[in-house]
């Protein structure tokens, strides 16, 4: 089991962004996103941002406010627009009506210019002639005043031809006035006599018959054309008035309909925006409860009450995930440490039992050597004093090959000493490893722990794995030695497994480096094996995660190691490059106060 892990993630496990996955429901990370997460719409545009930041009550108020506003605005606009066009139509109607009136009046007045009727009956009576003349010119003045009035009121746009006509008309009136003036202007009513009277009579008749009078008559008749136009204009203004009224109604009805439609659509929209997030939150809550998938999160799409609810639910899920994870880790650790402690006790017992007999052997070997040397010296002395030996003795010396014994016996003793030494070493390592007698914090030499670990593993190292040690100057580190040794054991053992599994044609090496950085002791265990795929790095320290075949790995090694180092307030990190190798770094504070049990 050689498993890398995400160092950043594990440096602060309480903020694990990827919560503990449920047992038996392990989803791949990419797809472990909640369904709600990818159904979540991308909120863009200020409208959405603004709208989503409103509370539900404000959303409802805003919605109905908008539709009500449109209704009011529409009605007001309708009334104003209607009034505007109505006023315009009424105005043009008034103008047209007034013009028609003026024109008719003008026509009637001009048609009353009848010199033969005005003057002929009165020609013989001085006073009547005088008043007839005054009246006639007054009438002419009236005509001219009316003409001016008409000209002033003429709407140039609607009656563009009128101005030219009026100019012509004015010319004719002037011509008539001067003709009339010429006839009756110079006549003194007091001195009027038969000659004058008949001359005036003739001239008046001539005037009536003249082109001047005829033209005036034609022009006044022609006024009818403009009266008709003015009446048409008035009619059109009437129609426009009707239309303005209709327009007003239409705008008001339209805006009412619009506001109703908006209110309807808004109510649908708002109820959706309110209920959808609630449903999503509910769905997430349900799924989390039913499946225990703590990777799910309720989408936070709004900043209203539902948004707050979502955030709170997410917090809750995170907390439960954290607690569940802690609980499971503690449980695992308990089981493991229970196992380890039984094993440690056994190992300690065995070591102790072996230790005494081995000490007998080892302790007596020195004396055995002394005695053997003494005996051999004694044999040599005998030979010197008794060079001639009896035949049976000589025969026996040859039979036992005394010469060989003399040579071989010290070697034999040496080899026994080596064997005994090794047994002592093994026993020492076992005791070192278990250290159950040292359940308290101790200042220990980590190098010693590393060495004893290597010794225990020496059997496996014989399979062609080279160990390169690069020990720095480490002070004694306060720790639980047995537990730290267990960590070394797990990691070195993983490194060996990895190297044995890899088919690389290089010298398989485990490099162990130690050094001190500020207040921390750092142990780095590097192997030049196959490395760990990146996708597995995140799961390395998960309990029961293993890449080994069933029966070989428990998936607990690194989890326990992680827990142990965590308990020491240290860090365990992994760097791996597939094909190049893996480095585990163990960082332990040299002096730690207030260890928890």
């Amino acid at each position, binding site marked *: 089991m050689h498993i890398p892990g995400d160092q950043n993630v594990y440096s602060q496990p309480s903020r694990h962004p990827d919560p503990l996955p449920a047992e038996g429901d392990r989803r791949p990370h990419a797809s472990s996103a909640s369904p709600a997460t990818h159904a979540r*719409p991308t909120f863009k545009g200020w409208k959405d941002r603004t709208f989503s930041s409103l509370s539900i009550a404000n959303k409802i108020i805003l919605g109905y406010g908008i539709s009500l506003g449109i209704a009011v605005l529409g009605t007001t606009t309708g009334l104003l627009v209607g009034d505007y066009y109505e006023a315009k139509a009424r105005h043009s109607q008034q103008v047209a009506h007034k013009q028609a009136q003026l024109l008719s009046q003008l026509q009637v007045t001009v048609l009353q210019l009848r010199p033969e009727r005005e003057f002929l009956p009165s020609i013989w009576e001085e006073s009547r002639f005088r008043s007839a003349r005054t009246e006639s010119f007054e009438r002419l003045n009236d005509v001219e005043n009316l003409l001016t009035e008409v000209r002033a009121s003429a709407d140039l746009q609607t009656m563009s031809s*009128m101005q*030219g*006509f009026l100019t012509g008309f004015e010319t004719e009136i002037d011509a008539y006035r001067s003709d009339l003036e010429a006839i009756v202007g110079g006549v003194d009513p007091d001195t009027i006599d038969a000659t004058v009277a008949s001359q005036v009579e003739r001239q008046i008749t001539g005037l009536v*018959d003249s082109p001047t009078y*005829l033209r005036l008559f*034609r022009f006044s008749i022609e006024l009818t054309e403009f009266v008709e136009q003015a009446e048409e204009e008035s009619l059109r203004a009437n129609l*426009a008035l009707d239309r*303005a009224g209709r327009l007003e109604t239409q705008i008001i009805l339209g805006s009412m309909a*619009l506001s109703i439609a908006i209110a309807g659509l808004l109510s649908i929209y708002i109820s959706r925006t309110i209920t959808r997030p609630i449903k999503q939150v509910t769905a997430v809550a349900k799924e989390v409860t039913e499946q225990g998938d703590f990777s799910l999160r309720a989408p936070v799409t709004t900043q209203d009450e539902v948004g707050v609810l979502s955030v709170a639910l997410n917090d809750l899920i995170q907390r439960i995930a954290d607690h569940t994870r802690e609980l499971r880790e503690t449980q695992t650790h308990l089981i493991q440490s229970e196992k380890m402690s039984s094993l440690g006790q056994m190992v300690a017992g065995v070591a102790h039992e072996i230790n005494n007999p081995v000490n007998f052997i080892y302790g007596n070997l020195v004396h055995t050597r002394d005695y053997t040397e003494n005996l051999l010296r004694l044999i040599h002395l005998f030979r010197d004093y008794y060079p001639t030996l009896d035949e049976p003795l000589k025969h026996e010396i040859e039979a036992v090959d005394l010469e060989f014994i003399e040579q071989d016996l010290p070697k034999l003793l040496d080899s026994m000493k080596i064997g005994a030494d090794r047994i002592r070493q093994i026993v020492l390592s076992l005791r070192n490893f278990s250290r159950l007698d040292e359940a308290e914090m101790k200042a220990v030499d980590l190098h010693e722990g590393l060495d004893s670990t290597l010794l225990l593993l020496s059997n496996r190292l014989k399979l062609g794995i080279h160990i390169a040690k690069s020990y720095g100057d480490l002070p004694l580190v306060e720790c639980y030695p047995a537990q730290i040794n267990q960590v070394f054991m797990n990691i070195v053992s993983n490194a060996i497994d990895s190297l044995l599994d890899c088919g690389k044609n290089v010298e398989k090496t485990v490099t162990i480096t130690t050094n001190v950085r500020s207040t921390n002791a750092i142990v780095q265990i590097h192997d030049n094996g196959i490395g760990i795929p990146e996708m597995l790095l995140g799961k390395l320290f998960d309990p029961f995660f293993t890449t080994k075949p069933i029966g070989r790995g428990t998936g607990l090694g690194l989890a326990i190691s992680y827990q142990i180092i965590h308990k020491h307030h240290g860090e365990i990190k992994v760097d791996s490059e597939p094909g190049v190798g893996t480095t585990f770094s163990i960082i332990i504070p040299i002096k730690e106060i207030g260890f928890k049990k």
Partner: protein
Amino acid sequence: MSALPNTVSRRFILSGFAGFGLAIALHACGQPERPNASAEASNNNDAVSPLKIGLNVGNVPWEYENDQGDLVGFEVDLVTLVAERLGRPTEFVDMPFTELFPAVLSGRVDLAMSSITITEERMETVDFAQPYYDSDQSLTVLAEGAISSLEDMRGKVVAVDSDSTGDVWVQENMEGYGFSEIIRYEGLTAAMMDLKAGQYDGYISDIPALLYYAKDHPEIAVVERIPTGEQYSMMFAKGNPLRDEINALITELKEAGQMAEIHTRWFGRAPDANTSTVQAADIPTLR
């Protein structure tokens, strides 16, 4: 419940609003325009509206009803060609000569034709296109009467068409020729009937009409041409842009020889080359 994705439904709703609002806005904009639009249309001489021509029917050979009751004449032919080129149908309005002036000014007719002479006085109130006929006044009397010249008219009763250039000439020359009285008529037919009935002695009016009339009426005769150097043209309200448009068409008709054709048709001979019937002329202006 949310069958539609949020974004889609929102876009749908918004576009719905926009469409509805736009419809209202367009409605509001479109509606009140109509009264004005129709007013403009009625004032505008747009392509389909008929060209209204004021005429004094009976003024031979310019415009009169032939035996079949059809309106014919030099000016009828001329204005028909003009209207064709304008792409507008014609509408002829019969009226007394004196009524032509106010009718043109009031816009009741677009133009007036009735062998109208261009005069300075008339140009004060109306506009003319370029002339198309050179004319003079003439004296017409009973063929078997004693009068054979203007000199014979001393102390006699003279008749004119009211407000015509003949009328103006007679008023100016009343003293000189010693006419005893002026009788005014409106229309040639009535004047001729009275002449034949002996109501007056001599009728002074434009020479072409009288010559034409005398052809078919041997009991009267044109006995003297009174040179006045008059020119006939079409009359328009002052400032009417139609004048320039039609003036250009008249030039075209003259250059194409169509004006000369009309002349030949009505007077039995081609016009003299230096007359305004052949030569394109400037638009007459006030001096």
